[in-house]
């Protein structure tokens, strides 16, 4: 039986990279959004500019499930290279839309899906002579056909085309025309609508639609970053590029036309972090954006910044590792790398935003934390959040908010005779005072180095001052526990012995999975970790439950490793749920994995076995 669903299905576009499909596909997603129905789009793209397969998936979800769902209800199969796999991925009862210009053997189709053929190439060849136009308008044409097949509001699409080409008005009419050619053909020749339909709703509210990288870059603008140094790497390049765009718009001195920022595309990731360290040492707020391979290269500077206590902000947009790994796929696999980056005893502060709104918030807060704690701060994004448009709450900024520049001793304080020891813990929180270079003619200067020194920054190779300093750094890390964003706990409606810990981009899939699990009779309390080092609440949550599932997007259960390592918790009680094939984690996966465990527990009470 063909699937019958309204405002709850998945459309996947299979295209050839570089064919101009991206803007048409985005147009489709935005049109659904304009009809008041939430969408969760995802790019599944190759490490390639032209020729390789690329997919764009739109989950249409009035219920607001923004995680990937898995499975496809309607496949728009525009790429012959991936035909077989694409056809196979359609859910039973689903739909296949394809270009029927060239006849295909019956064996190329499935009998359990509804096949909708439209001679797109033939229509394009009839309407246009220019090859590029044939290509581009073919994309708009299938969007037009979809508006008919899914019973969509064509006005919404037309309006979007008008907005999209504002300033290039000549392009509006031809695009609208192509849209209608597609739509009219479908209305005349195809059975419209299909069992899948988009119905106008009011489920979007005041939410905004933005990519995580762009939101994080905006966070850096609001957080007062003035120096950005970066090296191009997928999936983080668009963060630095967004910062460049935002700065050109919001950071130019209106009187002089000069820039209140400096952006350097460095020669590599080492230099990127070197520039950040130099700028931050000299009192500017500075950051870099990179991905796992970049963090690998930055290890030496991270050790220096940790030990010499220099603020730095790093946005790590994680991708599939190790090595070059899966550069265009998502993972949460840099957690341990970032937490313990560099040689010797080091620990770093990590923030885990769940979506663009938090990427903005944490992106700004990271600069306060870096200055306050005088240490590198990692904002751990991933490709799923960074490079996809995501519906999220509006970005918010408190007009009264002031930057926390941390403990910086001024010339006046030095003049008043205040004792300045660069590594002297005057307040007991492990955080010493620093001075900016050039502050005072005779007082407050010091030598910054990665080698051991005493509390007054004097070089020493003595064990006593070394241990004293390392212990103070631990006290500072304790202080960080109270400063990083707290974990958020959400308990089940009734007391339960089971809990689940998750973080970052897993959030929407987890929210959806918890509903599915409840429907299957499994209750779990939830804790979303938002920062490292872990707040006491994290340990309390684990202690409160017999078993806690730790859901992650990596092979080695990296957050769980940190939990065991840093909180001295019994590993047996922390059950890993791991998804790491490079696709975003889904509610189906989480619910199935947890349900299997819980069902098993029902049969043999593991608690008895363990004790």
């Amino acid at each position, binding site marked *: 039986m063909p699937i019958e669903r309204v405002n709850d299905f998945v459309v996947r576009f299979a295209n050839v990279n570089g064919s101009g499909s991206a803007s048409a596909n985005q147009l489709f997603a935005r049109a659904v959004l304009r009809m008041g129905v939430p969408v969760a789009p995802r790019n599944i793209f190759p490490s390639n500019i032209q020729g390789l397969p690329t997919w764009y998936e739109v989950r249409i979800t009035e219920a607001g499930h923004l995680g990937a769902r898995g499975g496809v209800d309607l496949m728009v199969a525009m790429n012959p290279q991936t035909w077989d796999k694409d056809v196979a991925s359609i859910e039973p009862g689903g739909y296949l839309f394809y270009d029927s210009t060239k006849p295909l053997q019956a064996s190329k189709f499935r009998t359990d899906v509804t096949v909708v053929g439209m001679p797109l190439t033939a229509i394009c060849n009839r309407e246009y002579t220019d090859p590029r136009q044939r290509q581009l308008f073919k994309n708009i044409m299938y969007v037009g056909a979809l508006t008919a097949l899914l019973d969509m509001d064509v006005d919404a699409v037309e309006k979007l085309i008008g907005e999209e080409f504002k300033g290039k008005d000549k392009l509006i009419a031809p695009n609208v025309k192509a849209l209608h050619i597609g739509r009219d053909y479908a209305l005349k020749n195809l059975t419209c609508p299909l069992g899948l339909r988009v119905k106008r709703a009011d489920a979007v509210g005041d939410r905004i639609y933005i990519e995580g990288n762009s939101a994080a870059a905006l966070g850096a603008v609001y957080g007062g970053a003035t120096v950005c140094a970066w090296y191009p790497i997928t999936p983080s390049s668009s963060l630095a590029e967004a910062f460049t765009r935002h700065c050109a718009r919001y950071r130019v001195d209106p009187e002089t036309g000069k820039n209140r920022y400096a952006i350097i595309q460095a020669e590599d990731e*080492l230099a990127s972090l*070197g520039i950040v360290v130099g700028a931050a040492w000299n009192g500017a707020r500075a950051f870099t954006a990179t991905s796992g391979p970049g963090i690998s290269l930055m290890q030496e500077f991270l050790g220096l910044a940790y030990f010499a206590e220099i603020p730095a902000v790093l946005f790590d947009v994680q991708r599939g590792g190790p090595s070059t790994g899966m550069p265009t796929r998502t993972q949460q696999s840099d957690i341990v790398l970032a937490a313990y980056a560099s040689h010797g005893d080091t620990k770093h502060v990590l923030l885990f935003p769940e979506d663009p709104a938090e990427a903005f918030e944490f992106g700004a807060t990271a600069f306060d934390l870096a200055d306050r704690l005088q240490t590198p701060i990692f904002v751990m994004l991933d490709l799923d959040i960074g490079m996809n448009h995501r519906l999220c709450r509006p970005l918010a900024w408190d007009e009264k908010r002031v930057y926390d520049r941390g403990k910086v001793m001024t010339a006046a304080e030095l003049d008043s005779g205040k004792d300045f020891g660069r590594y002297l813990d005057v307040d007991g929180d492990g955080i010493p005072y620093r001075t900016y*270079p050039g502050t005072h003619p005779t007082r407050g200067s010091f030598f910054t*180095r990665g080698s051991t020194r005493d509390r007054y920054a004097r070089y020493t190779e003595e064990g006593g001052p070394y241990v004293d300093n390392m212990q103070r750094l631990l006290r500072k890390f304790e202080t960080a526990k109270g400063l990083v964003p707290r974990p958020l706990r959400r308990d089940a409606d009734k007391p339960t012995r089971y809990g689940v810990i998750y973080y970052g981009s897993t959030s929407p899939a987890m929210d959806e999975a918890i509903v599915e699990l409840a429907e299957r009779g499994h209750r779990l309390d939830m804790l979303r970790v938002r920062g490292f080092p872990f707040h006491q609440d994290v340990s309390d949550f684990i202690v409160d439950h017999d078993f806690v599932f730790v859901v992650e997007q990596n092979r080695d259960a990296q957050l769980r490793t940190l939990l065991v390592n840093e909180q001295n918790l019994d590993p047996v009680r922390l059950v890993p749920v791991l998804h790491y094939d490079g696709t975003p984690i889904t509610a189906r996966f989480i619910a199935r994995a947890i349900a299997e465990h819980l069902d098993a527990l029902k049969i043999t009470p593991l608690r008895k076995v363990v004790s």
Partner: protein
Amino acid sequence: MTYIVKPKFHHPSLPVNELGFTHRDYEGSISTLCAGCGHDSISAAIIQACFELNLPPHRVAKLSGIGCSSKTPTYFLGSSHGFNSVHGRMPSVLTGANLANRDLIYLGVSGDGDTASIGLGQFAHAIRRGVNMVYIVENNGVYGLTKGQFSATADRGSKSKRGVVNNDNSIDLIAMALQLGATFVARSFSGDKAQLVPLIKAAVEHRGAAFIDCISPCVAFNNHPGSTKSFDYVREHNEVVNRLDFMPPRAPIHVDYKPGELEIVEQHDGSKLALRKLHTDYDPHDKLGAMTYLQERAHAGEIVTGLLYVEREADDLHHHLDTVERPLNELGEKELCPGAGTLAKINASLR
């Protein structure tokens, strides 16, 4: 390693500069390098140059990498902030520091291992960006702290203390600096303070990337026969193309040279360089000519020293980036945060 603390007192009649500082106020802690090390002479030249330029010591930031040369910032300008960063990475740290506050003077001190081997990339990129700095390489052709391995500036055919002959071609930092667009390029010799001090002064006043390759013999590991970086070898093969006198703005110029022997070069701040030409046909504004001449003389086994190239209309990274005049590290919420009203508009545009 010495544990002696340098005494602070000094003779009451020690001359003071315009700021009331004595020469001692520009010193740092006592050197822990080997007695007779060329690097200590360079530190002394830096001290003298800063004293004579009347620089407030705290307005200088001194940065270095790792190695013997990179230790030296501890031994001069004790009232300046210093940063002994990681091996070969001083150029990036200096670049960042410079971006944060364009008003300070940035002195990058490095060695031939730090710059020509591990840091070759960072050296090249800082130069090509035109960072406003003085970049001094204390070049001895050898790794001192790790006891005598060849560095990448060791000449092919030169012999190590242990008798090993270097078969690798050497890296010519001057040639690279010229090609990469340094706007002030000089080579000097730690044993020639009279040449070095005015070069440092001119480099400090130069706006743009100023590079000084200073041959600085290593008395412990590279001062033997067969070395091309020994005191004796450098003295014998030193070909000085010009002598420089640095004159602060408004200083009167006394010209007592024959035409063609002296050239006055004015820098952006009004300071002047009086160049006494020892080779009348050497033109330090002709980059291509300089490159050719340097290659020819190097081929003949000579070490050309002096002000090798200076660009009359130099500019720097801040100019290229069009940054505000006020140092970026002084900007606060008012200048940097677009505010809640703008954010509301941004939100509206994302629906």
